[in-house]
């Protein structure tokens, strides 16, 4: 069912943000979401929706070595699916997923803008594999060039294979 009408995922330098400076998780979310809005990938409603969703259902993950967060929200706020990656200049506390009482100092944010529910299994599984590898996460936070991050994640997430190469 899904395969026939799967739209192309946007993943290029424009959705990769380096040295994001923020005091709070709300500031992080706003910066990353606003960039997606500026690129036309999401609707205006995506920005408040992602902040509200994080309040209700936190997405901080205390992964090995480097904590990450995977903010996401409902499909109706999305124009075109993308994974936005933001490296934070200083760690910002996010509440841990499924746990109201604890936070984790997040250094990398993967903002998921998905346009179909229950989809993208293999992509999400590969993303979780990235989270479960301390070396990979450490490599990512040591990068200072968007193209290096793009190429690295494209390979790890097999984005080119999934999409059948360049457009």
């Amino acid at each position, binding site marked *: 069912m899904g395969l026939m009408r799967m739209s192309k995922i946007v993943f290029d330098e424009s959705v990769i943000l380096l040295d994001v400076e923020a005091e709070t998780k709300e500031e992080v979310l706003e910066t990353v979401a606003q960039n997606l809005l500026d690129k036309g990938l999401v609707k205006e409603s995506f920005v408040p929706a992602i902040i509200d*969703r994080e309040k*209700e*259902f*936190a997405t901080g*993950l*205390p*992964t*090995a070595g480097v904590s990450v967060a*995977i903010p*996401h*929200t*409902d*499909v109706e706020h999305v124009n075109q699916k993308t994974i936005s990656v933001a490296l934070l200049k200083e760690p910002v506390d996010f509440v*841990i*997923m*499924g*746990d*109201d009482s604890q936070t984790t100092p997040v250094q990398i944010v993967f903002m*998921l803008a*998905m346009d179909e*529910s*229950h*989809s*993208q*299994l293999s992509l*999400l*599984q590969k993303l*979780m594999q990235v*989270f*479960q590898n301390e070396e990979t996460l450490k490599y990512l936070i040591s990068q200072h060039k968007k193209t290096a991050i793009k190429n690295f994640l494209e390979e790890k997430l097999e984005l080119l294979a999934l999409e059948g190469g360049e457009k």
Partner: protein
Amino acid sequence: MAKKNVLVACGAGIATSTVVNSAIEEMAKENNIDVNLIQIKIAEVSRYADTADLLVTTAKTTKEFPFPVINAQTFLTGIGVEDTKKQILDELKK
């Protein structure tokens, strides 16, 4: 052994429940357990209060349910995932 109805839930029903759903599916297959997986948003859980046998979720749950609830955050971080799998398997075998 009756086929168990297992709810797999996250906040949006989009991302994390998809991954957890697939992991449980695989685990059940490996153990030859026939299971009925239902992937939903956490807000929809009460709709299944009478029919579900187990809830596996990455979202917080404050409500009380008449079935066990297992936190599945470990499927995403990989840390402690074997314990979580064992918990789920124990419930499925009941």
